[in-house]
């Protein structure tokens, strides 16, 4: 199973991903129709892309009265079946992160679907802040990252700092 990975330190805030996402899904370049959002923190000059987490037990899925939202057990993606959607917007209120949202008309529900397994956003992310990776590989990377951070703390402790 592959998931979208974000490396916040690498994001330059160019927002190419937002345009690519919108174009892939609607044929138009409108950041309001993008499923991925780049959050800008100007005071710290940092940029943080945020994307649907495809929750294990997703609040949006639980609350959908028509089962228009279901988790695909193979890909792990919480999928939206438009035909079944009545537009009640329960899912949008249920997501505390704002990851499932309305399009620019304020009427239609849109959500990240990993572009069916070939995400458009990663292709335009030149600094490689976004990637699409196997869960196992990510786990290894995370273990290493955490260990590196703990090593720094341990070093400080030995020196009597921290």
């Amino acid at each position: 199973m592959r998931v979208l990975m974000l490396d916040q330190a690498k994001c330059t805030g160019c927002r190419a991903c937002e345009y690519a996402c919108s174009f892939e899904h609607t044929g138009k370049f409108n950041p309001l129709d993008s499923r991925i959002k780049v959050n800008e923190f100007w005071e710290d000059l940092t940029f943080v892309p945020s994307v649907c987490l495809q929750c294990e037990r997703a609040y949006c899925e639980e609350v959908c009265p028509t089962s228009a939202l279901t988790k695909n057990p193979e890909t792990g993606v919480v999928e939206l079946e438009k035909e079944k959607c009545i537009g009640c917007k329960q899912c949008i209120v249920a997501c505390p992160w704002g990851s499932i949202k309305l399009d620019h008309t304020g009427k239609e529900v849109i959500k990240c679907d990993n572009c069916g397994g070939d995400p458009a956003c990663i292709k335009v992310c030149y600094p490689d802040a976004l990637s699409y990776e196997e869960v196992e590989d990510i786990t290894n990377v995370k273990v290493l990252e955490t260990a590196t951070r703990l090593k720094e703390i341990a070093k400080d402790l030995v020196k009597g700092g921290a």
Partner: protein
Amino acid sequence: MRYLIVGASAAGLNAARTLESLDPQGEITILSAEEVFPYSKMSLPYLLSNKLKKRDYLFLPSPSKANLMLGQRVVDIDVERKKVETGQNKTFSYDKLLITTGAEPYVPDMELEGSPLVLTVRNLSDMDKLKDKLNKSDVKRVILSGAGLVNSEIADALAELNIPGTFVIRSHRMLSQIVDEEGSEFIAERARENGMELITGESIAKVQEEGDHANIFLTSGKVIQGSCVVVGKGVRPSIDFLERTPIKCNTGILVNEYMETSVKDVYAAGDVTESKDLISDEYEMHALWPVAMEQSRIAATNMVGYSWKYPKEVSRNIVNLFGEVVFTGGISKEDAYEVYKEKEGRSYHKILVRDGKLVGFIFVGSVLNPGVYLAAMKNQWDVSHLLNEAIKGALSYSMFKAPMREVVNI
């Protein structure tokens, strides 16, 4: 472990799903008073308007292992012997019991109750009756007694079908339970534009059948005609069958923060309960679909043996009315604490702030991230530096830096 669930709707089925995943060895039985397979009650107005493209989409996901028994209405519970009894003369034993019997419409005027021309909308059979009346009557107009959430949704569906409606409202305004006077006026404007008539400060005295329609006599003496009357004056929890039990009730069943009732091993969730409100800190009914889902998940988790605390609840509503999205939360109908309002064209925004925290809001028209508003209110995040964004409907999750590291209550 034997789990028994009384009531098979939003809360009952979600609890079954949770139990199935947390205790695969458990034996789960669900009893439903209704004869039809469980369906989503909140989708009924969408069935009327045909926004629900197929009737099949109404039905809730079928539990994979639980034993669902239709047509079994529970009439009594013996909490000592841990047994429930149904009107169909069956008894069921349990180790852990969950009550999710929801609520029923309340018809305050006794005279109206029982007339075949007076309907309420709660069950699928009610909606089928309404559709039937609309088909058969020579007058299409529907008389809506009360302008609460359900009747407003019915009116919206009628407008989609180009069927006129008349609200007869005693309280003078629409949605008086969730919006303030100004908000009501914004919605009433849209209602009128969409073929709805509003008669305020009046109620219905008598309904008389005449040929293929109904004559409706108002308290002022005025007579109007319609295909039928739909009464939407709120709901009352279905707790009659608990009369002989020691389970503590007020208007609804009182539950503690673990969703347990005053009797051990008996839990309750959904519209049948009253739970602590975050803003008022008092017991209130939060008869809402998403609340039924949250409460049932937590109740089921605790029935398995965990001790999950249910965070205090807040009222909230999102509904599509006459082309506008109406999103409210907290103490929305009042003007209390710090009040900020913004009106522009067809949109009306209001936020209420107490000690820098959101305690209420109304958005008629656009709001970017409703879920973030709810999370900000439920978790009482500081918005004092974000008032400008908040009133514009533009709050986003990333504006709150600290909460990233905390557990987020949904």
